[in-house]
């Protein structure tokens, strides 16, 4: 029976044209000059995935705020709260 793994530790892939430049600039990834190509592409993948996750988090966060912006109670209360703040002598 074929074994399958939920995670991929190793794979073969074609490097897209512009990305082939990466090994010439290991310093862009905070790596020393003599870093191997494999290590550079590893670092690049990690950096890329981290950016994807950050983008997804930002997108989800924006959706939450956009929904809150439309919240009828918030909209009704915003002006009154502002006046309560400014009239309270905090400035």
């Amino acid at each position: 029976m074929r074994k399958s793994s939920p995670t991929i530790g190793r794979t073969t892939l074609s490097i897209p044209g512009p990305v082939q430049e990466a090994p010439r600039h290991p310093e862009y990834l905070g790596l020393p000059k003599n870093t191997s190509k494999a290590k550079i592409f590893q670092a690049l993948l990690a950096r890329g995935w981290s950016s994807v996750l950050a983008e997804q988090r930002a997108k989800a966060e924006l959706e939450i705020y956009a929904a809150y912006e439309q919240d009828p109670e918030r909209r009704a209360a915003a002006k009154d709260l502002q006046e309560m703040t400014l009239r309270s002598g905090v400035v």
Partner: protein
Amino acid sequence: MPLLRGTIHELTGAPNVGLAILTNDRWNSAMSQVGAALVRPEILPVEEPYAVQLGDGRFATAARVISLQTPAAEPDGTSPFGPAQGSLSTDELRRLEDALLRFLQLPLLLRPVPQLRRPVGDASRYANWGELYVGNQLTAGERKRFIVVSPNEWNAATGVVSAIRTTSKLKLNAAQFPKIQGGRIHACCGDLTTFGPGALLLRRQSRPTPATSTLAEMVAIARGLVITHDLGGALARAGI
């Protein structure tokens, strides 16, 4: 155009007073109200631990973060945000973030074993950290509940209180809007604001029931504030 974190705008009608925007830029791009620290020419001695002196000599103070409507929300020109006066430098912004982190006691709350600060002096004479109060004015026709997040020492010394609006009607489930009072209401962390003395009703008959939040709820609020006010970097600098 959305207001940007770190920029300083004039407070309309008060040319010497600025507003240094602190809510995160996702919030600022989606919302018609943003949080900003007051920038003033002079501060109280008790404010110094929470203030950052800027290059122009004024002080941005983490003890007076207020939530105000943007010009986009008030197209008739009545927004408190006047023209831009400049920006905080990277160093000034970091020091202001660090001051806000300390002021909100986030390092105490977000350590592996959270710590609780006890009230100081006669706790009935000022709004207490972690407790709920209603405002002395009607908001959207109701007396809204606020949860106090400023430290007791500050509240006792100044009567000025930083607090977060709560709501029972919100349908969102997100870390920025943690549930408190046993899940009955949400705290809207991005709406952190500051009131002068007397804005919250202290007398016992006016207090909501229950009037106190749990430590776990305050930890959840702390996590929400880290997101809405972009305090992750400050938290890392504090070693947490």
